[in-house]
C-alpha cells in the first residue's frame, strides 16, 4: 500500500499494465542498501526512482565536532574503495588553507597510492560488473588481483581498506622498504592478468550484446547531472581533475585522459579498462623516481584553519570528489561538505535506464560503479 501512496504523491498514477517493484534496500545487485523504486511494464523499465539514505551516518555533521587530522579517518569510511583519494582531498584542502607546501616525496607517494587505489577500485568494479551480468567467475579473478594491492597497502599504511595514510602536511609514515619492489612486482604480474580480463569479458559476444547501445547518456545530460569520473568520460565529458586541475605529482607525469563518445554501457566499461592501463603507466613513471626527503612537514600540534571557505577536489576512482570547508578560525570546521561522485552519478540512472529491460537496469547501475556509503555519507 505504501508504494501506491508514494506514487500518488508523485502525481503519477499507474496504468493497467504497469506495476512497481522495490529493488532494494535488500537486493543482490544494489551492492548495499540502496533502494530503487522501479516502475515496470512487463520487463520494460518506465521509471526509476532512487531512494538513498538507508546508511546515512552523518559524517559531515560528525566532522564539525572533530579536528582536521581526525576528519581524515572518517573519509576512509565514505568511499571505502578510494580511501586514499578521499584522505588526500582533506589533506590537500587543509594544506591549501594553511599554505603549506609538502615535499615532492609526499606528492609522489600520494600519487602512486592514488593510482594503486584506482587500480584496486576498478578491479573490484570489473569483477562485480561481471557478477551483475551473471559471469560469476570474474568476481574471483578481480578479487585475486586486488588482494595483492591491498597487501601493498597493508604493509605500508597498516590497513587494507581504511588506510588513513594521508595527514595534513604529509603522510602517516614513510613507505615501507619493500614498497617499491612490491609495486614493481605487482605491475609485472598484473600486466599478464589484464589481457585476460579482456579475453574473458571485454570481447565476449554476450557482453557486447548486453551493453552496446544500452544506457545512453549524452554529453549534455552528463554535464547537467554532474556525472563525473569514468562514467562521465564515457559520455565524452572531459572531466578528469587530474588533467584539468593537477594536484600532487600529476603535473610531473604523462598520461591520457580516456574519453569515449559512444555514451553507452560498453563505453563506460571500456573507459575503466583503459584507465587501468593508464594507471599502470602512471605508477611506472613514478615508482623509480620517488625523490628523497621528508615524508611529512612538521605541523603544529593543534591545527587551526584561518577564517574562510576552502574547496579542494580530487579525482577519485568514480569521479570528482570535493571537500568544502567553512572555517571560523577554530580547530574544528564550522561546516564541512563532501561532494561525492556517487550521489550525482546515481541520479542520472533514471535518464539512462528508462525504456530498457530490468537486466539492463542492473548492468547500467553496475557501470555507474556506485558505493552506497559514498552516496549516503
Amino acid at each position, binding site marked *: 500500500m505504501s508504494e501506491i501512496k508514494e506514487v500518488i504523491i508523485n502525481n503519477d498514477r499507474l496504468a493497467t499494465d504497469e506495476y512497481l517493484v522495490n529493488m532494494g534496500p535488500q537486493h543482490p545487485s544494489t551492492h548495499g542498501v540502496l533502494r530503487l523504486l522501479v516502475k515496470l511494464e512487463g520487463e520494460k523499465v518506465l521509471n526509476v526512482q532512487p531512494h538513498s539514505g538507508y546508511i546515512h551516518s552523518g559524517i559531515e555533521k560528525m566532522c564539525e565536532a572533530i579536528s582536521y587530522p581526525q576528519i581524515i579517518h572518517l573519509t576512509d569510511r565514505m568511499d571505502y574503495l578510494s580511501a586514499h583519494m578521499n584522505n588526500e582531498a582533506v589533506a590537500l584542502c587543509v594544506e591549501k588553507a594553511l599554505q603549506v607546501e609538502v615535499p615532492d616525496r609526499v606528492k609522489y607517494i600520494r600519487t602512486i597510492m592514488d593510482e594503486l587505489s584506482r587500480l584496486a577500485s576498478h578491479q573490484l568494479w570489473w569483477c562485480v560488473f561481471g557478477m551483475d551480468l551473471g559471469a560469476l*567467475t570474474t568476481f574471483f*579473478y578481480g578479487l585475486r588481483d586486488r588482494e595483492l594491492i591491498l597487501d601493498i597497502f597493508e604493509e605500508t599504511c597498516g590497513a587494507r581498506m581504511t588506510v588513513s595514510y594521508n595527514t595534513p602536511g604529509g603522510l602517516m609514515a614513510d613507505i615501507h622498504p619493500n614498497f617499491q619492489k612490491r609495486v614493481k612486482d605487482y605491475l609485472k604480474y598484473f600486466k599478464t592478468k589484464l589481457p585476460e580480463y579482456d579475453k574473458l569479458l571485454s570481447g565476449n559476444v554476450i557482453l557486447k550484446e548486453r551493453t552496446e547501445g544500452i544506457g545512453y547518456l549524452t554529453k549534455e545530460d552528463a554535464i547537467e547531472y554532474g556525472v563525473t569520473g569514468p562514467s562521465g568520460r564515457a559520455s565524452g565529458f572531459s572531466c578528469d581533475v587530474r588533467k584539468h586541475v593537477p594536484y600532487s605529482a600529476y603535473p610531473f607525469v604523462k598520461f591520457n585522459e580516456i574519453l569515449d563518445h559512444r555514451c553507452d554501457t560498453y563505453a563506460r566499461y571500456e573507459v575503466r579498462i583503459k584507465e587501468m592501463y593508464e594507471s599502470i603507466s602512471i605508477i611506472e613513471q613514478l615508482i623509480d623516481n620517488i625523490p628523497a626527503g621528508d615524508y611529512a612537514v612538521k605541523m603544529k600540534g593543534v591545527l587551526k584553519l584561518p577564517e574562510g571557505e576552502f574547496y579542494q577536489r580530487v579525482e577519485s576512482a568514480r569521479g570528482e570528489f570535493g571537500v568544502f570547508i567553512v572555517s571560523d578560525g577554530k580547530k574544528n570546521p564550522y561546516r564541512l561538505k563532501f561532494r561525492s561522485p556517487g550521489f550525482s552519478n546515481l541520479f542520472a540512472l533514471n535518464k539512462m535506464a528508462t525504456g530498457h529491460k530490468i537486466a539492463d537496469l542492473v548492468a547500467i547501475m553496475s557501470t555507474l560503479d556506485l558505493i552506497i556509503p559514498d552516496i549516503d555519507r
Partner: protein
Amino acid sequence: MAFNIYDFTTLTHNIHVGLAESFSPFVATTIEWVIVGVVYLLFIAVFGLFLVYAERKVCAAFQQRLGPMRVGPWGLLQTIADFIKLLMKELIMPRKADYFLYNLAPYLVIIASFLAISVLPFAPGLQSMDFDIGVFYLTAVSSVGVIGILLAGWSSNNKYSLIGAMRSGAQILSYELSVSLSLMTMVVFAGTMQFSAIVEGQRDAWFIFSGHVPAIIAFVVFLVAGTAETNRGPFDLAEAESELVAGFHTEYSGIKFAMFFLAEYINLFIISAVAATVFLGGWMPLHFGNLESFNHVMDFIPPFIWFFGKVLFVIFIIMWFKWTFPRLRVDQILTLEWKYLLPINLVNILLMALVVLTKFHF
C-alpha cells in the same frame, strides 16, 4: 543369481522370474514397480547430491578456489549436511500465496524429472521403459516441468517470482523446439526413436563420429538448447540472481526449495544423459574400425562406467559454460533461438537427410 557388470539383462530377468514364481502376477508387478521407484528415488537423491557437490568443486576450480573443504574429507559430506539443514528448515509460505498451487509446484517440477529419467538406458538391461517412441516421449515429458515453474512463480504472489516464471516460460517453450529438432536430426540418422536401438546403432562408431558435420552441428545446438532447457547459466534468466533475487523460487524455503534445486540438477543430468546416449553412444565403448586390440581393451571397461563417464563429460561442459559466460537478456535469448538456432537446425536436418540418402557416412 548371475551377476554380470557387462550386461544387467540376466539380473533383471532373474529378479522378474523369481518374483513371478513366488507371487501372483499382480503382486509381482506391484513389487517390481515399487523396487524400480525406490531405485530411481535413491539414484536421484544420491546423484543429485553428488552433482551439487561436483558443481561446487568444479566452479571452485574455475575460480582458483578449493570449494567446500570442512565437512568430511575434501568436503564430501557438505551437500549431505546442507540437505539435512534444508530438511529441518521451517517451511514459510507468504500469507497471500495461493495455497494449493504453491504447494503443488515443487512436486510437478520433480515429477517431470522422474518421468524423463525413466527412458534412459544406463547400461544393457538397466532401463525401466524401452518405448519405441522414446525420444518423442522424452521431449514431451521434459517440458512438463515448466508448468511447475510457472505455477511456482504465479502462486508465490511475488513480482520477482512472476517475472522469473514468465521468462522461464518463454525460454523453455522456445528452446524445446531446438532440443527436439536436434534430436530429430539424429533420429533421421539412426532411423529409430527407441533409445536402446539408438545405442545399439552406435556399436561400431558413435553417431557424433559417423554422422560427422551434421551430427556435430546438432550436438552443439543440443548442448546450447539443453543448457537453456535446464535453466542454467548463461540462460539462468528465470532465477537471475542479480536481477530477480532468486527468480521463481524466491518464496520457497526448506524442502520445497530443495526440490526445485534437486530438479534443476536432475534436469542437468537428463540433458547430459540424452546427449551422451544420442550423440556419444550411450553405454557403448569407444570403438575404432579395425583396431582389434584397442577395441578389446575398451570393451573391458563396464558399460555403466562408459555411460556415466560420458554424462559427466557433458555435465562438465555445461558447467564450464555457466562459470564462464555472462547471462543473456530475455530478448536476446529469444533472438538466439528464433534467429540462429532454429534456422541452423532446419538446414541441419536437411543436410542430415542428404547424408543419409547419399549414404555419405561411416
